[in-house]
């Protein structure tokens, strides 16, 4: 009951409030207003841009992600584990940092390409500040999502199907084309759905590249709407958010439908044997590592290079190198420090609340059935799949008015951000835990029930010990996602409540690029430390919960 209330207050109520604010601003349905707003030139343009960007970048992510999954899952390439780690890593780096790093890497004053004589002539427009740049970065950013999904399908592919094809005389490339690709189709489309949703809702890249390039998308439109005032501003924002949500759901439904048609459920206990690359091993490996160098090492080094000089465009050398930016970011800049600590404790609190809730919720969802359970699950999944900015808008609307018993509104305080986090990440926390429950034997719990143990005693003594690894994995995932998060909090931060995620955008907008780069480097370092830590713990975690582990 309490659980239903929790999910209800955090997921369902704000979304309901969003819908009502969007469609019934003064308590009545006004079709003319909706038509005016959605038919406006700005909105139509932003919608078309959004659709085109999301579709094109999803296609790019499909191609790259699928190739990478085939390479890592089916061939005998050496050092795959390290390569997979490097390939999945960008997914864990906050998108605004990625965007900043790429901008630095390919700017006319690039600290890296400059010395090599490869950089663009000064004065040219930055190539990434364009529609193409947004598509490229979103595609690269989301490729690991497709990769993970396709790799999961590959792992379920029965070895004998591939062996039968070899016995029939098919060569590795023919097998890939005729047998493997058709059979992992479901995985490709599932990954495409994720990539599409993630592209649509990726505020970091769209804002960092799109605002300077004047490529307007729905999400940046919503963001800028917040800064315009007027009687209907909030309701208009709600309507745009609803439009964005509609696009998201439509995209998911479309890819889901495409993927299901002719979907082949195959399940194999035996891992497929790896195909020998033979004389292609060297070229293929070289290409794979070059990809990582270009898409991971180059931007991050450029970011580091920018963070180490005093002003953008300065060449990096023994005489210009300085740690001032890092010192500022860590010790002197009051705002950054506060934002960092706010993020830290918000995230910690969020994990501390979500894990127990998820364990309890998982117990209900897995071992009890019924429409309440299904409804709860659906609501939490929806809140997770919808772009974070929509949750942000919903939270503003929901908490804008004074709360009934407290008498004051929460708007503008960190508590709104916490509420948004809880709502947004419940599904993320829930997934590994559901996986953990599925591996537990129901009989253990029932046996304890027969001895007369109550539900709390059973949770404590029987369920939790077996579930600890899954709960830990879930905690790590939520922590890593929330600590650098931007989509939700960018709308909710105020002078009283700052988080670290949007900081980069604000610093960059204010022109302190080198300081932004330093903060970005620190965020990447934090992510790397967390990932490395989780790998050390990884031996105790169930297989498949940590995406960066091969």
């Amino acid at each position, binding site marked *: 009951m309490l659980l239903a209330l929790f999910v209800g207050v955090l997921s369902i109520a704000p979304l309901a409030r969003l819908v009502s604010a969007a469609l019934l601003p003064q308590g009545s349905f006004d079709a003319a207003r909706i038509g005016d707003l959605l038919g406006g030139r700005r909105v139509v343009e932003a919608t078309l841009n959004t659709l085109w960007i999301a579709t094109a970048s999803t296609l790019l992510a499909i191609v790259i992600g699928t190739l990478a999954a085939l390479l890592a899952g089916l061939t005998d390439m050496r050092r795959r584990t390290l390569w997979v780690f490097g390939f999945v890593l960008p997914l864990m780096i906050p998108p605004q940092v990625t965007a900043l790093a790429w901008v630095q890497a390919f700017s006319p004053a690039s600290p890296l390409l400059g010395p090599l004589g490869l950089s663009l002539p000064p004065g040219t427009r930055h190539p990434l500040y364009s529609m193409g740049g947004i598509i490229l970065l979103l595609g690269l950013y989301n490729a690991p999502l497709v990769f993970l999904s396709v790799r999961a399908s590959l792992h379920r592919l029965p070895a004998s199907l591939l062996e*039968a*094809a*070899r*016995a029939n*005389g098919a060569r590795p490339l023919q097998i890939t084309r005729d047998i493997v690709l058709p059979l992992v189709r479901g995985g490709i489309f599932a990954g495409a759905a994720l990539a599409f949703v993630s592209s649509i809702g990726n505020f970091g890249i769209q804002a960092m590249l799109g605002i300077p390039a004047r490529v307007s998308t729905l999400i940046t439109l919503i963001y800028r709407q917040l800064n315009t005032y007027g009687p209907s501003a909030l309701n208009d924002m709600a309507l745009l958010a609803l439009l964005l949500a509609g696009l998201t759901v439509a995209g998911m439904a479309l890819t889901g439908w495409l993927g299901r048609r002719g979907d082949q459920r195959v399940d194999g206990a035996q891992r497929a044997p790896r195909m020998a690359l033979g004389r292609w091993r060297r070229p293929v490996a070289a290409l794979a590592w070059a990809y990582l160098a270009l898409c991971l090492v180059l931007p991050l080094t450029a970011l580091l290079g920018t963070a180490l000089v005093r002003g953008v465009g300065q060449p990096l050398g023994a005489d210009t190198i300085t740690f001032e930016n890092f010192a500022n970011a860590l010790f002197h800049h009051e705002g950054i420090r506060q934002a960092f600590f706010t993020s830290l404790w918000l995230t910690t609190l969020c994990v501390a609340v979500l894990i127990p809730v998820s364990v309890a919720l998982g117990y209900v969802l897995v071992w009890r059935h019924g429409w309440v359970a299904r409804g709860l699950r659906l609501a939490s999944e929806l809140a997770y799949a919808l772009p974070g900015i929509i949750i942000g808008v919903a939270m503003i609307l929901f908490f804008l008015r004074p709360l009934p018993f407290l008498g004051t509104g929460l708007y503008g305080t960190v508590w709104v951000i916490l509420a948004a986090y809880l709502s947004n990440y419940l599904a993320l926390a829930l997934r590994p835990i559901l996986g953990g429950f599925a591996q537990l034997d129901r009989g253990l719990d029932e046996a304890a029930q027969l001895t007369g143990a109550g539900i709390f005693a059973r949770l404590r003594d029987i369920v939790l010990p077996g579930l600890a690894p899954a709960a830990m994995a879930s905690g790590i995932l939520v922590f890593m996602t929330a600590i650098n998060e931007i989509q939700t909090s960018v709308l909710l931060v105020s002078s009283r409540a700052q988080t670290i995620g949007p900081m980069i955008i604000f610093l960059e907008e204010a022109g302190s690029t080198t300081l932004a780069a330093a903060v970005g480097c620190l965020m990447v370092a934090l992510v790397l430390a967390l990932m490395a830590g989780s790998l050390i713990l990884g031996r105790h975690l169930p297989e498949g919960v940590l995406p960066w582990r091969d």
Partner: protein
Amino acid sequence: MSGIVIDAVDKSFGRTEVLRQVSLSIEPGEFVAVLGASGCGKTTLLRCLAGFEPVNAGRIDIGGETVSAPGRHLPPEERGIGVVFQNYALWPHMSVVQNVAYGLRIAGVPKPEREARVARVLEMVELGALASRRPADLSGGQRQRVALARCLAMESRVVLLDEPLANLDVHLRGALEEEFAAFHARSGATMFYITHDQAEALALADRVAVMDRGRILQFDRPEALFRQPASETVAGFIGEGRVVPAHDIRPDGTGRAQAIVLGQPALLRCAPDEKPRAQAMISVQPADLALLPDPAPAAIPAHVTRATFRGAYLRAEVMAGQAAPVALSLNIAAPASLCRGQRISLALRDGWVIPDPAALSSSQPARTDR
């Protein structure tokens, strides 16, 4: 031609040795069954033949060409072999026709000929009517027929089958067994058939290889396995054989021997080169024992521990002999009644003196086929 020579093949996964010094020489067009308990390495042997696994030592020749040896490994797609898998391994996204035609398509067989060949093999396995179905819409037996048709269409000279009937019910097995026999007769292909069901192996195969813990114990015709087992393990494994101790073996040099079994003299079969021995183990099948109208001279006394009705005959489990009783079983023709504890007299009409393991171990037990 399409004979297979497996010469002293070793295969291990990490530190577990799965195949040890396996040697078999298979004639072109022969139907060979490999029989053995679960986990003894049958599938591994098949996978080495097919080229899915490299070997650690030894050599495999197919049709006179060395396909596997340390440092040489012809990939499966270049071996021209057909494989029928236990779980059928049909491609779920292709229809029956597409499954059967795939190998021909890969081989570049022109479309009209391809279609004609596919139609012909589907007719042979009586699946013409189901040609456009997906594997998911077929029964287990039909799926295995499609897998067979896929092999037939390729006209492979060597066909490997890994427990192709294990997932099917008894009735289907009988029908498909006939199908395999017909397939073999029609195609003339060399067949290498893995099973753990000895009835299947003995019924289908020209020769049967009995495997145990990675070694070939004996490779011989079915009736030879049954009547002349080379070791105690084979004797206990094949049919319902029992192994009984015997004394004072006096061979006559023509494959017959006098001996004392359970305190009574008996005339047994033995290898022509069998030497006189004080002790030996002999293999006894239920049919070798006869019930005597009691009490007779030179009879083996026994008492019944269990009698079960088996339709055409009565199966009796008995403890025979006086000093150290041995468990035996025998079949008694139908109008008979025995009850538990009843004392009876037996005669041993036949038996096989198992060759001396000490003499054998100096030569290679796995090479009995050479």
